[in-house]
């Protein structure tokens, strides 16, 4: 069992001798909490906030951590995933951080968590109304690579002038016959604000639409918070003649046989051997525990490095 399987059960106040509860001071939490409420009031709009120095460098989820630290309480159970996996370095260190500074319970089970902080995936397991999903954001501004000037980006959102983005996507179609963006595929939220869904695969975009749980987004380096309230309309940009489509695979998961989950290609040996496995490690494990079997089952389930264990990205 990994560290995630255990949980700390220290009572709320008896933790972190040298820390404030959940690390942040109360004035910072108040400021972030006000931003979160305004973010909820204007779905998809990026609220600037006064990001604080965190004991982790940018790129390790400091935006998500500040959001989580501002909402979490002693009754919460936290799950942290990085590209779908609970057991990567980044996920483990964020989970340990909150176990230490807030004394909260942690879990790797999606259904048991009240707050899930994630980088680059939305869990496969459906989420409920009484849960909150916190997404780490490296680059919050969907218009940034088309319009580098911050003030101009604010005007674009202010006046809903998103023509540039449509042009960009249509140029993709003209050049490649399809929209080639597969991650961080822009979405229109509540028919008003163009939003970066974060570098989730576009496979996950449809999950955001009318999602029962509140989704909060925190960008540490660029100091933005945004939100999608429950059941909000979230539409991936597309065109009548080129409707939005998610990735599909010819394979199923080699370990659990799932045909409905996002698959990572992993290398299994030095001779170019490879297989496809669920990116959501808890979902895969849950299915195997329930008796689902993939084509690799029976052989020794090979060990492999998950692609999530890699460099920081600015979130």
């Amino acid at each position: 069992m990994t560290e995630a399987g255990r949980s700390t059960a220290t009572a709320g106040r008896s933790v972190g001798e040298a820390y404030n509860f959940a690390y942040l001071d109360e004035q910072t939490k108040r400021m972030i909490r006000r931003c979160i409420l305004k973010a909820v009031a204007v779905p998809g709009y990026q609220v600037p906030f006064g990001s604080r120095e965190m004991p982790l460098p940018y790129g390790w989820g400091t935006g998500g951590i500040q959001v989580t630290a501002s909402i979490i309480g002693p009754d919460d159970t936290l799950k942290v995933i990085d590209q779908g996996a609970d057991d990567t370095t980044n996920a483990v260190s964020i989970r340990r951080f909150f176990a230490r500074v807030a004394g909260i319970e942690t879990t790797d089970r999606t259904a048991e968590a009240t707050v899930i902080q994630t980088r680059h995936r939305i869990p496969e397991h459906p989420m409920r109304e009484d849960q909150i999903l916190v997404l780490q954001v490296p680059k919050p501004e969907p218009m940034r690579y088309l319009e580098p000037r911050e003030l101009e980006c604010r005007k674009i959102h202010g006046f809903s002038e998103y023509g540039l983005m449509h042009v960009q996507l249509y140029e993709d179609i003209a050049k490649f016959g399809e929209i080639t963006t597969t991650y961080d595929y822009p979405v229109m939220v509540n028919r008003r604000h163009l939003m970066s869904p974060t570098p989730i695969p576009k496979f996950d975009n449809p999950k955001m639409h009318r999602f029962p749980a509140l989704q909060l987004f925190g960008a540490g380096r660029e100091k933005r918070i945004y939100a999608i309230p429950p059941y909000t309309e979230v539409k991936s940009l597309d065109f009548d003649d080129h409707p939005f489509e998610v990735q599909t695979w010819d394979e199923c998961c080699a370990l659990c046989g799932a045909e409905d989950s996002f698959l990572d290609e992993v290398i299994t040996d030095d001779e170019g051997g490879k297989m496809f496995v669920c990116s959501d490690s808890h979902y895969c494990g849950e299915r195997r525990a329930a008796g689902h079997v993939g084509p690799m089952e029976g052989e020794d389930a090979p060990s492999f490095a998950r692609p999530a264990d890699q460099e920081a990205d600015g979130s």
Partner: protein
Amino acid sequence: MSGTVGGHDLAPGFADPVLGSQSAFRGVLEAMSRPGRVVTLSTLPTAPAPLDPATAALALTLMDFDTPLWLDDAATTDSVTDYLKFHCGCPVTGEPDTARFAIVADAALMPPLDAFDPGNDLYPDQSTTVILQMKSLAEGPRLRLTGPGIERDAIATVDGLPAGFLDQWAANRTLYPLGVDMILTCDEAVLGLPRSIELEG
């Protein structure tokens, strides 16, 4: 904390300021995320009259020296202003359009919604949040809410909105994504009314 200021007793804030604010915040976050849902706050401070405990909890949780506050005449009592100065440190402003928060204890004294700050095109988040104390969030005229946070529609039965409120709210809606946000309070409960919501009587 409690004490004596200006010769009268000061009501204490949360018994545990850190966990009290966290708990109240989750309550108001749920209320703003799921408009129409009446959320009872589980941790409440002692409130100076005429503030409801939920109103005082919101003040302790959200207000500080960065958030100018506008108070209606009913809420402008020594015990309230001393309480807010002592526990929150927020400046009190006489101009509703400079306020980040407003507390309205008597709906009859509420200025029209467009007297408050709706934010601006570049920063629609810089708008006033109006906290309005209601006679009831359980019984009263029926309102139908639709919009983000609501699966199909939500029905609220509330008593105590100012006269002509639905028209003012409809005008506020036309400013979207600018606009004033509201939190209705009564006793220990809150109901969120973000600017994104459509209201029908």
